[in-house]
């Protein structure tokens, strides 16, 4: 399984929630509300495996729908890590 770096923006509407931002390959940010337990090492979330690859980009599926209604975003490969590597 893979993880991606995120920015934690703050609390959600419920104490269990946190709003995070994922930086896309084009530099824009997509905001996603996630469960606080989904955030690992303060700034990473699990994303399963990338669903496609193109040049230095991965297409990943986020754990929940972004505030703009997307599930999948292109991100830089350098922002994606294998979980086990991080845990090592």
């Amino acid at each position, binding site marked *: 399984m893979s993880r991606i770096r995120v920015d934690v923006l703050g609390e959600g*509407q419920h104490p269990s929630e946190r709003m995070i931002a994922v930086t896309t390959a084009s530099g824009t940010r997509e905001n996603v509300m996630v469960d606080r337990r989904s955030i690992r090492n303060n700034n990473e979330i699990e994303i399963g495996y990338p669903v496609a690859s193109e040049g230095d980009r991965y297409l990943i599926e986020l754990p929940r729908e972004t505030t703009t209604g997307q599930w999948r975003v292109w991100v830089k490969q350098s922002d994606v890590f294998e979980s086990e590597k991080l845990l090592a």
Partner: protein
Amino acid sequence: MILTDREIKLALEKETLIIDPRPTDIAFASTSVDLTLDPIISEFVEKKTDRHFDPGRQGYPLNDVLKEETKQIDISKLERYELAPHKLILAWTTEYVDLRSSPRLAARVEGKSSLGRLGLGVHITAPTIHAGFEGQIQLEIINHGHIPIRLRPGMRICQLIFEQTLGTPEKGYRGQFAGQKSV
């Protein structure tokens, strides 16, 4: 394929499905499990000014807007909480649900007929709990009826129906990136 109570319990035993706190036996039906209402709800604040949502606008700060337009209430601290007719609130299940260990497991959150006949709906057109979901399930609760409905923390508020997908979703399938070292 919909999971029966036996398959749901088996998945809970094997921890390929986590529901925390774990539902007791009476929460199950043949093809569903009931979840309960968390005490924290989010109520829309009534204001007189002209307002609107603009979710299609690029960079629209939906969470900030929702925070501005709602207030958090702990209904366990109130003597009672009654949902007025035609009023919408955001609420959550008490239970934390984790589907990550089973890439082929998805679910649907549905209302309960005992509440539906009173006019209480628990979601607005978005019942799907996608494969890989983790968290407390957000509910969009609305009273479609004409009489206030009292909500109590811990009451059975919705049911989850689990479905096994046909095949493994792309994000749960390592095949195409197997062996690559960058991921």
